[in-house]
């Protein structure tokens, strides 16, 4: 075991750096949130794929299916909802029917009304109030596999030209992506956990890998807290990168000072 580089009196040994990092991160998030600056976020290529897919649906006169996952309000669901809002706007503008399957777990029940609000708003802002139909957000039970069955049923009956599946999806995602592919729809997915991402990378036409979905959500969202979060996350990723590269160089040169720092 490596000895820690420093100790802070009163703090449990080996936990000082972790505590400092959490506190600094909190300060960073707060700073960027309250600074009022509009933070630059790069457009991820997945968004072009989404626009293209909706365009194609409009040309073919077929519906778009877009889901935001089956989780409660978590990191991935938030990203899914931001993307759903974008999809709804584009669909309303193009005059394409949008179907949003909801449900899938009991914890997702509280997300449903928010999603409905988002879609309704998007239609309203595009001046297509009359085109909004709340029946197009079917509730497919609070059970994962009943939801999956219902989702697949919708795909088979309505034959959409594009399926956009974002947010917090689990093993049912494979199931849905396979069906979506079988009916010839453009399949765009996002994945948060890694074995799902790998399987979806195979099953979909385009995939937003991991953090790409929250970043896309923040890019589309007007709300500063989301952008501030992405900024703070980037700084910590950069920190990780610096520590890794620095650590590798120093370690190769024979000094384990970075490792000592990390266990402090």
């Amino acid at each position, binding site marked *: 075991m490596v000895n820690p580089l420093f100790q802070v009196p009163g703090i449990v040994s080996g936990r000082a750096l972790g505590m400092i990092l959490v506190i600094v991160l909190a300060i960073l998030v707060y700073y960027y949130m309250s600074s009022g600056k509009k933070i630059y976020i790069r457009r991820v290529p997945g968004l072009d794929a989404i626009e293209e897919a909706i365009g194609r649906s409009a040309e073919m006169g077929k519906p778009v299916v877009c889901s935001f996952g089956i989780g409660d309000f978590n990191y991935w669901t938030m990203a899914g909802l931001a993307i759903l809002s974008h999809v709804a706007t584009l669909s309303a503008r193009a005059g394409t029917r949008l179907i949003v399957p909801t449900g899938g777990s009991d914890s997702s029940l509280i997300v449903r009304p928010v999603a409905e609000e988002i879609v309704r708003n998007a239609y309203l802002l595009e001046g297509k109030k009359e085109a909004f139909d709340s029946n197009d957000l079917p509730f497919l039970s609070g059970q994962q596999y009943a939801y999956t069955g219902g989702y697949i049923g919708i795909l088979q009956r309505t034959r959409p030209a594009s399926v956009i599946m974002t947010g917090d999806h689990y*093993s049912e995602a494979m199931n849905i992506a*396979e069906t979506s592919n*079988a009916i010839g729809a453009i399949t765009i997915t996002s994945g948060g*956990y*890694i*074995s799902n991402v*790998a399987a979806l990378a195979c099953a979909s036409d385009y995939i937003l890998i991991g953090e790409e979905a929250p970043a896309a959500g923040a890019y589309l969202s007007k709300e500063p807290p989301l952008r501030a979060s992405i900024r703070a996350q980037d700084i910590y990723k950069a920190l990780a990168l610096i520590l890794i590269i620095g650590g590798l160089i120093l370690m190769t040169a024979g000094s384990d000072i970075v490792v000592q720092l990390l266990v402090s």
Partner: protein
Amino acid sequence: MTEQKTEKRSIYRMLVEYDRRIIYLFIFVLILAPLMQPFSLPIQVSPGTMTYYNVLNGLKKDDVVLVVFDTEFSGYMEIQSGILASIKMMFEHEVKVAIAVAHPEATGIPQLVFDQLKGVMDQHHYIYGQNYINLGYIFPNSASVASTAQDFHSIVRQDAYGRSIEGTFLDNVNTWKDWTLISVYTTGIQSGSIINHYGLRGTPIIVNCIGVMISTQQPYLSSGIYKALLESMRGGAELEYLTSSPGPGLTAMNSFTLGHYMLIIAIILGNIGYFGYRSEMSRKAKEER
């Protein structure tokens, strides 16, 4: 659409566009057949399994091990070979075993394990309460895992059968420090909290996980939180092979091999079809011009 149907389909095209249900049928048959008519094919032990074996082999008499069934019942089907072979090794080393459950569906597993290992347990004079105990569903959420790591008896007072745990070997267990080893069999329900509340503080952990989780568990292995990782049913079969106690794992290995080879052949045929069909189409396009 109708034109396409009347047109004769080339072999390449058939390899690209086929009814998915054909693949489904093949899997069913190829898995089921070897299970109904077992035959033996050789296997090779991977280095990861070897490490896992060595950790278990290093256990000494009266070490205290916490076994966690962190799995739905479906997960048990996949890793039962690993569970049986590992716990058999623990019993053979005469360690004290406490079993905890982290999913409602797993509450039936401890009894299944005891039934199947009855022979070894009798041979090594295992007495309930003195040498082993079934704590039942004590890990419904991460908070409960955290509590047990800080003060075990504050949250666990009874075993699975509603009897007080006072007077058992658990009297000597109070915090995370008091376990020699935690052996987790997991589909990933509470494994994260076990890492956070036990592993991080320094309790040695070994894990037998389902195949889907292997990639997500790798980082914990490489960062040293896990002492060893047994991969899915394949690892279990290898462990059975190492301990020379053939069980469900080894008998399943033929189905396993055939299932993999089927997919490999499907991939090869798919590629032949894809390239064949593509060159066919481009040839046709040229001719039409």
